[in-house]
């Protein structure tokens, strides 16, 4: 047993060395037109060796260390409190949600333009995560290519505005519907796959869409992307200094106030807020409808669900389609916010971040997902000095999360159902 442990630890340490020496210890340097290989500083080598020793020690004493980690929740002051009563918790959650929304309505008027911009991004991630939550959290379908539908929404708006001059408000439903349709089309052949297979195939689809956007230069402009995507208007009022489209008026002239670039940012933020709230409400509603229960039932026990008359394909497809629909929604808002999109915005990392939000927030819980979206988007901004280590922090957070709270920040709670005694 002990010998086994030691051998395993030694193996891990060697792997650490093998991986890190070429990556960190060797540098490529350009000298004129030649590229030469140079060694790194001695301190780097010392660090690598120290890291290998750390890995060795951790692996050798892994069981006891993990055991200690497992005991840590006892330090949590809430750990031995009784879980809150269902109905009470439901009330508290709706209060918190209402509080967040009210706060969110007013605060853009007091903070800086950059913060509002960032908050808009958070809201876009909230929409995305709420949508993915349907697919992963509720229906239990591991979708690693979710960003594809986000891209469909964004590109739909970008292309339509480029070729037909469509407005944001027209593009919003079209983008969402097209994304939903894509979800349905892609979903149909792959949803009979299970677990890991589904994850890999969806991952592939995500990449296919991105590569398609990258290479179909005549239509999408390839890596150069598409620019000049219009901002939303408010009843035909534009937020730019000058009116771009005929027949429109400008916001600041109509209200007789001085032009300010902030109006536009705040307006976009408010739109994103309203759309995020609508998304949350619709999905909340779905969760209480037969279709929402069917998603969960199929996730819990597919065989039992089928024996009760649930069609596997129809149920999974509905989850996939609805998830894709809201990704398209978010994509349209994103395109409008950026004014410019390129395939670079839709890489796998985005899928991973959205998935991380869902997992951190607690699969199936809306409030949890919202809090996690805020945390995952804002923390890296706050800790800019550490931006290089963003992925590292991310990974560490995920691992700790799985040890401490595998169910996520706020696990899903069941809806309390009142049944009246029948005669």
């Amino acid at each position, binding site marked *: 047993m002990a010998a086994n442990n030691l051998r395993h630890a030694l193996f891990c340490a060697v792997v650490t060395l093998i991986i890190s020496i070429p990556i960190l210890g060797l540098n490529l340097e350009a000298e004129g037109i030649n590229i030469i290989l140079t060694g790194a500083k001695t301190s780097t080598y010392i660090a690598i060796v120290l890291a290998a020793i750390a890995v060795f020690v951790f692996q050798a004493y892994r069981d006891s260390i993990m055991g200690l980690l497992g005991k840590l929740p006892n330090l949590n002051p809430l750990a031995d409190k009784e879980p809150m009563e269902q109905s009470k918790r439901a009330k508290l959650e709706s209060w918190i949600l209402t509080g967040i929304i009210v706060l969110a309505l007013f605060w853009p008027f007091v903070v800086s333009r950059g913060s509002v911009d960032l908050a808009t991004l958070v809201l876009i991630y909230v929409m995305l995560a709420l949508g993915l939550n349907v697919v992963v959290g509720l229906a239990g379908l591991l979708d690693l290519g979710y960003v594809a539908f986000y891209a469909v929404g964004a590109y739909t708006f970008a292309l339509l505005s480029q070729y037909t001059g469509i407005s944001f408000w027209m593009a919003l439903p079209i983008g969402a519907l097209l994304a939903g349709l894509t979800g349905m089309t892609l979903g149909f052949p792959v949803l009979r796959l299970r677990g890991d297979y589904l994850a890999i195939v969806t991952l592939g689809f995500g990449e296919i869409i991105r590569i398609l956007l990258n290479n179909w230069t005549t239509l999408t402009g390839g890596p150069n992307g598409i620019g000049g995507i219009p901002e939303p208007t408010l009843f035909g009022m534009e937020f730019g200094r000058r009116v771009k489209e005929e027949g429109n008026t400008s916001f600041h002239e109509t209200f007789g106030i001085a032009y300010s670039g902030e109006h536009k940012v705040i307006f976009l933020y408010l739109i994103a807020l309203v759309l995020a709230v609508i998304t949350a409400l619709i999905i909340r*509603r779905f969760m209480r409808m037969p279709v929402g229960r069917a998603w969960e039932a199929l996730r819990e026990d597919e065989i039992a669900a*089928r024996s*009760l*008359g649930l069609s596997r394909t129809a149920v999974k497809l509905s989850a996939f389609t609805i998830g894709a629909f809201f990704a398209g929604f978010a994509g349209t808002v994103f395109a409008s916010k950026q004014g410019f999109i390129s395939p670079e915005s839709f890489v796998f990392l985005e899928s991973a971040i959205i998935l991380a939000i869902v997992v951190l927030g607690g699969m199936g819980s809306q409030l949890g997902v919202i809090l996690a979206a805020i945390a995952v988007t804002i923390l890296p901004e706050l800790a800019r000095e550490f931006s290089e280590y963003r992925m590292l922090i991310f990974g560490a957070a995920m691992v700790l999360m799985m040890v401490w709270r595998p169910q996520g920040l706020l696990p899903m709670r069941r809806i309390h159902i009142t049944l009246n005694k029948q005669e």
Partner: protein
Amino acid sequence: MLEVQNLSMRFGGLLAVDGVSLDVQEREIVSIIGPNGAGKTTVFNCMSGFYKPSGGKILFEGKEVQGTPDYKISRLGMVRTFQHVRLFTKMSVAENLLVAQHRHLNTNMLAGLLGTPNYKKREQKALDRAAYWLERVGLLDLANREAGNLAYGQQRRLEIARCMVTEPKLLMLDEPAAGLNPAETKELNQLIVSLKEDYNVSVVLIEHDMSLVMDISDRINVINQGRPLASGTPEEIRQNDDVIKAYLGEA
């Protein structure tokens, strides 16, 4: 109402079911018994559409249903329970019963999103039906418990209630008494009889508990190693030499 003719099911080289026939009339309890591995559950899996039989016919209300997808079978009015209880363990007891009524609620999504009066009426009906059956199996007080946290006997009863809210014509029970104590078995006995008498449901029962089988069955089919061995009333089965040999030979 149900007629199984010459059913066979082959898994690779193993003929798990070979020429089994069965018929069930309205308001009848028919049992399938046989030693472990005889192929009883496989017969259920064919009937409920999980397997496509290699041969033979299954007629339900005169229509051939072999090979019909599983989810359509239950919509025809044939539902089953499982040898190892299969509940939606993380969902509440009440939700388990609501899931089963999916079909009754299946108005379009828009109606649900908007909460139209028609939708609300159906939803209420589903809740009432769930309450009724929970009361009937003595689980009403536990309606908001997680189904996975129920005691074993309660889970078994919930599984039956979950079938009943779909308003089936034929109920297939796979070893419902397994793991129950004598008192619970007695309750189960009364429940099954009442399903037949009060709710006009036909029951096909797989069970190893002989006293239960002998007590409530109208007819019994014995299968052994996939092949039909005997069929008849409990009295006839009790005295059948082949059956005695098969069972005593086992013991």
